[in-house]
């Protein structure tokens, strides 16, 4: 007896290659092939960048469903725009520029929905006791991050979580270097101020 799912393709069960695991040269070849219309190369690009894109979207948006949708829209737009991508430019800032735009659009939709809820039924806040200090600290970080203005949150995440250079951030956001440094500084100041007020820090 053979299990029903025995014909699953290798690509469906093999672990996703991360961007770290694939060297810069291989990455360039994959991007070049995807740009030339190679669908397998595009699927590899999705495998390489999906988790990173989702991490960024989850920090920018308040629901997982919205984050997944933003990432899906991003890859559809990347697919459409790949023929216009110039290979001498760095791929990641280009990808994050599209992702950032999708997150801003989804964020605006979330805010409109939140305003609607405010005038309707107000959802209850979680009252579960926070026994685990690590979880409580993580929740405080999430709350502090969400309290930042969108531009500061985006700049902080790109700089400190995605590890991008200010030049790449400038490509990804369209903002100048000084403005980005100021956004990151203000985000750091606000996070520091908010989180030093939390017990146990």
């Amino acid at each position, binding site marked *: 007896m*053979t299990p029903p799912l025995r*014909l699953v393709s290798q690509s469906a069960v093999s672990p996703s290659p*991360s961007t770290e695991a694939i060297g810069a040269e291989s990455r360039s070849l994959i991007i070049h092939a995807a740009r030339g219309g190679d669908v397998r190369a595009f699927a590899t690009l999705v495998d390489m960048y999906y988790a990173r894109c989702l991490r960024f979207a989850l920090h920018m948006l308040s629901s997982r469903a919205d984050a997944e949708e933003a*990432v*899906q829209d991003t890859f559809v737009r990347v697919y459409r725009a790949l023929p216009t991508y110039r290979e001498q430019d760095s791929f990641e800032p280009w990808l994050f520029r599209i992702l950032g735009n999708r997150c801003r659009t989804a964020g605006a939709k979330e805010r409109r929905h939140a305003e609607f809820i405010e005038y309707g039924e107000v959802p209850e806040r979680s009252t579960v006791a926070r026994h685990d200090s690590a979880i409580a600290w993580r929740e405080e970080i999430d709350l502090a991050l969400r309290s930042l203005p969108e531009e500061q949150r985006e700049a902080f995440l790109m700089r400190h979580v995605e590890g991008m250079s200010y030049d790449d951030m400038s490509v990804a956001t369209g903002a100048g*270097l000084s403005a980005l440094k100021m956004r990151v*500084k203000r985000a750091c100041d606000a996070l520091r101020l908010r989180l*030093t007020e939390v017990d146990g820090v």
Partner: protein
Amino acid sequence: MSDEQDEMHEMHEMDEMIESIAARLRPLPRVDSAAKARVLVAVAAERERDRERLARRSRVVRWAGVGVLAAAMAFSAFVLGRDRGAATVTPTAVQTAAAPAADGRPGATSVTLARDVDGSSALQPVQLVFRAPAAKRVSVVGDFTGWDPTKAVMSRDSGSGLWSVSLALPPGRHVYAFLVDDSVWVRDPRAVAAPDADFGRPGSVLLVGRP
């Protein structure tokens, strides 16, 4: 910013608390394989729309070409005063591939095809059957659904564990696969594998014939 300001800025950024916050935010999230599969389905649908747009454009160009050719022929006939017989173009018959019925083995699938009796361009009824007793949801994805998993959701027969769906497809070659539980992409094991399956996912070929 001046160099001095830059230096202060870097020092300001790199303190322990900021590093601790960033370290908590850096772990990659759990990836839902169904959500990732949906990305490829959405991109495949986009690719299919591109193909349709190209095909439409090519049809327009072809018809424009036929119009010019017809005008030229009419002009030639008029000038030369010849009366030529019209050539009849017969569409090439497409061989129907009808796989055998499900033989009861897990994973066995079958394609049964009932031919329509009128019109070579009429939609033809096609039934796809897939055996997956443990699956919660199975849908057919293919070029004929624009790779949208919501357009051909299969129904389960609880006794046999067989999933089936009836479709009306235009004659010609189609590429399809089964999407199990919104996450696992499986090609039809009883049909010919498609060499051009989308996005590295397996696919099968379905040839729908004309009567």
